[in-house]
């Protein structure tokens, strides 16, 4: 077995988006001596945080309270969010966004110089801080540029972590494939924080970029950490048909209207549960409403199937250019429509995973030394449905918390047996060398990926039912088996993106397995998980988190109680 190069740090952060960068900064600030590695499969400014558009929520105005933000989040989560987590989150949110402002984030401003806020779905008052309609871009670049100040954050860019290295029940580092060189390195660390984002690419129609393949979730899953609440996949109501490109909720926050083929504002005229909030209802309800309108025959015909309309024409050019400039550009480039003059074609699109690696409020998993934060993790802040603009703040709050917890853990920890750890990395080198360009049973990578995505769309769409979910579980299991027969073409060592795509597909199949199996087990409708054959929320039997453990015999499902607090579950009506 070959020898791999070994590197040593105290804390390893996997993933360089908002959560990863925030965790890295928190770690070096908490411990002036700590050596922190930031290992990302792409350069940090390419992380998918960059595409977030609408805003980040935190209490800012005098007419707002932490309690209100807390309750909005609890209710938005359909009472599946852990209330201790939510309490901590709303307290820290204003501090984190203020801190980011100090680090240069160009928040949009009111005339008096204070940070401006806008309305957002499910929020009772304006508490979404924004930077025109490119908040994720500005947050990511501010965080990345600020992180450049710290020499003790050592970056490993375009290094793809393929395995967590475990010794004596504790995570001791990662095996990372250097995409450019084609070699695997053993990066040892006393704690590891997974901040790799979600896995929207298991679906065919998603706002997510190519890199969102659930890598961190799969890594944790494979060493025995359960994935929690995976059935809850958020369909954002307004994505462009065809590409799936996100049209931010801020369009509705600034007054946009959603209409059917008759020009009717059906969220107002018909009862879809959003009450007077209309277009500012929570995302799951609006997505369901749009699907129902289309099924009732009131959808608009388009080249990519039926869709609804998002009408901004009454907002005026000035407002659109100042508050929603990127939306205007995106519509012109990717939909051939100018929202100042025409309605935007939109339909629900997979956007976010509420579920993820099961962690506690500090980001710690059940495996010693392993932490997770951001969309990768399920703390659970978002329960069964996430409110828009909570996730960017979540990345900061829990990125910081896990970074601090990880470095404290590293301080008190030891290194483990070097040889046993290095051997695992060497095994990874052998595995990847064997995978590269290999000819097996003739299964094509793109075919397997398309079939996985098709199965997920059929079984785990906005509306679900038992038979199709079971079918999807079977199809995913079959695809797992067929993956062993995949044939690859690229035998090159240098910057082989095909082998990376193959490893990502393996990760996605693991994530898809947990989503489909968890969904099949939840016999109720709650938040984003809506069933035609179990339409009511069932707090008696299903007020719990689902946990999905990896098992050779098939995923093993268990449950975990929800931490309630000051708010008892009630009917979720707006």
């Amino acid at each position: 077995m070959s020898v791999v190069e070994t590197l040593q740090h105290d804390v390893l952060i996997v993933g360089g988006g908002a959560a990863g960068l925030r965790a890295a900064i928190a770690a070096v600030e908490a411990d002036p001596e700590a050596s922190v590695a930031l290992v990302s499969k792409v350069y940090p400014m390419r992380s998918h945080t960059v595409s977030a558009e609408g805003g980040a929520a935190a209490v800012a105005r005098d007419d707002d309270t932490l309690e209100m933000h807390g309750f909005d989040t609890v209710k938005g989560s359909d009472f599946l969010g852990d209330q201790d987590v939510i309490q901590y989150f709303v307290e820290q949110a204003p501090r984190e966004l203020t801190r980011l402002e100090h680090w240069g984030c160009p928040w949009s401003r009111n005339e008096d110089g204070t940070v401006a806020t806008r309305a957002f779905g499910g929020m009772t008052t304006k508490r979404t801080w924004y930077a025109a309609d490119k908040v994720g871009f500005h947050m990511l670049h501010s965080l990345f540029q600020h992180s450049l100040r710290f020499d003790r954050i050592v970056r490993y860019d375009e290094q793809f972590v393929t395995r967590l290295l475990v010794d004596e029940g504790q995570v001791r580092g990662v095996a990372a494939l250097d995409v450019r060189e084609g070699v695997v390195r053993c990066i040892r660390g006393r704690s590891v924080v997974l901040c790799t984002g979600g896995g929207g690419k298991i679906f065919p129609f998603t706002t997510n970029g190519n890199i969102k393949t659930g890598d961190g979730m799969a890594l944790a899953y494979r060493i025995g950490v359960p994935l929690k609440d995976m059935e809850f996949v958020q369909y954002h109501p307004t994505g462009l048909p065809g590409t799936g490109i996100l049209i931010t909720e801020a369009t509705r926050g600034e007054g946009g209207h959603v209409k059917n083929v008759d020009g009717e504002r059906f969220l107002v005229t018909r009862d879809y549960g959003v009450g007077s909030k209309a277009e500012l209802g929570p995302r799951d309800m609006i997505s369901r409403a749009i699907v129902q309108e289309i099924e009732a025959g009131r959808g608009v015909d388009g080249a990519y199937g039926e869709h609804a309309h998002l009408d901004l024409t009454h907002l005026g050019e000035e407002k659109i250019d100042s508050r929603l400039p990127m939306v205007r550009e995106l519509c012109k480039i990717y939909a051939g429509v100018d929202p100042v003059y025409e309605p935007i074609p939109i339909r629900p699109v997979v956007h976010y995973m509420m579920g993820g690696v099961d962690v506690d409020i500090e980001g710690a998993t059940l495996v010693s030394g392993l932490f997770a934060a951001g969309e990768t993790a399920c703390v659970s802040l978002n329960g069964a449905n996430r409110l828009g603009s909570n996730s960017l703040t979540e990345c900061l709050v829990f990125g910081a918390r896990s970074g601090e917890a990880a470095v404290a853990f590293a301080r008190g920890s030891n290194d483990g047996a070097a040889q046993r750890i290095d051997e695992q990395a060497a095994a990874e080198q052998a595995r990847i060398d064997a995978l590269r360009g290999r000819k097996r049973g003739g299964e094509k990578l793109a075919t397997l990926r398309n079939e996985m995505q098709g199965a997920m769309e059929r079984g785990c769409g906005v509306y679900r039912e038992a038979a199709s979910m079971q079918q999807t579980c079977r199809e995913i299991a079959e695809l797992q088996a067929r993956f062993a027969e995949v044939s690859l073409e690229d035998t090159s060592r240098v910057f082989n993106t095909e082998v990376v795509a193959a490893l990502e597909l393996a990760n996605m199949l693991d994530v898809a397995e947990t989503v489909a199996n968890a969904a099949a087990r939840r016999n109720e409708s709650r938040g984003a998980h809506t069933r035609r054959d179990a339409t009511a929320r069932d707090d008696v039997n299903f007020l719990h988190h689902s946990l999905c453990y990896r098992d050779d015999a098939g995923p093993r499902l268990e449950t975990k109680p929800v931490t309630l607090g000051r708010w008892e579950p009630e009917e979720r009506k707006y």
Partner: protein
Amino acid sequence: MSDLPKKTFVVTRFDPDQDEAPRTERYEVPCHPDWKVLDALNYIKDEIDGTLSHRWSCRMAVCGSCGMQVNGEPSLTCKQPVSELPDTVEVAPLANFPVIRDLVVELEGFLEKLKQVKPWIIRAKEKAVEEGTHSQSPAEHAEFKQFSMCINCMLCYAACPVVANEPEFLGPAAIALGHRYSTDSRDEGAAERNEIFRGEGTVFSCSYANECSEVCPKHVDPAAAVNQAKFNAVIDWATGLVLPRGGRE
């Protein structure tokens, strides 16, 4: 798929382990009318030739990964419609950069230049979180806002004739980002950056080609930033002759 019109993509290929120098390969791609060049490249990779390596992610012109030369022009391939191009499309890696593989270029040089300009808020005394946010008026925000839009796509570096000749030149994006911070009302580091702008990577290497601004997909107008930086660097130098450093803000 088979009844879609086909275009010929002539793509630069390079594998350092196999190829002495870059070469090209031709691919016939059936193109959907809505496709961007990136969609065609992905089709090639998925259906025709799995050995093609290229960077991409967001496909919505905000992550900056997919910059390449398309028919000789630096272009964001996720934004460039195929329908606007002739029947033969040449796709090559970005000009002015060393090439790692196929359409993938070396970015470390840029990151070094970026770090040189200190792209962060420099203040004598950091504000405490408890004190709240800095006050910044919409007018103050507008002064640097445009320069903060850079997605680091590197098209400007690929277009700049000076970057082709002078390895030390900081380049459009790095200077624009340094300038973005110097003009941010919360920053106090303009003097430091002006010295950097007069230093080895000097902004004065810019010879007014304006190509950077012509190709920028985000309308950052780096040429404006570079020339404003020249102005500031000169004023700073001149006042530095007259007033002692401590006498300035």
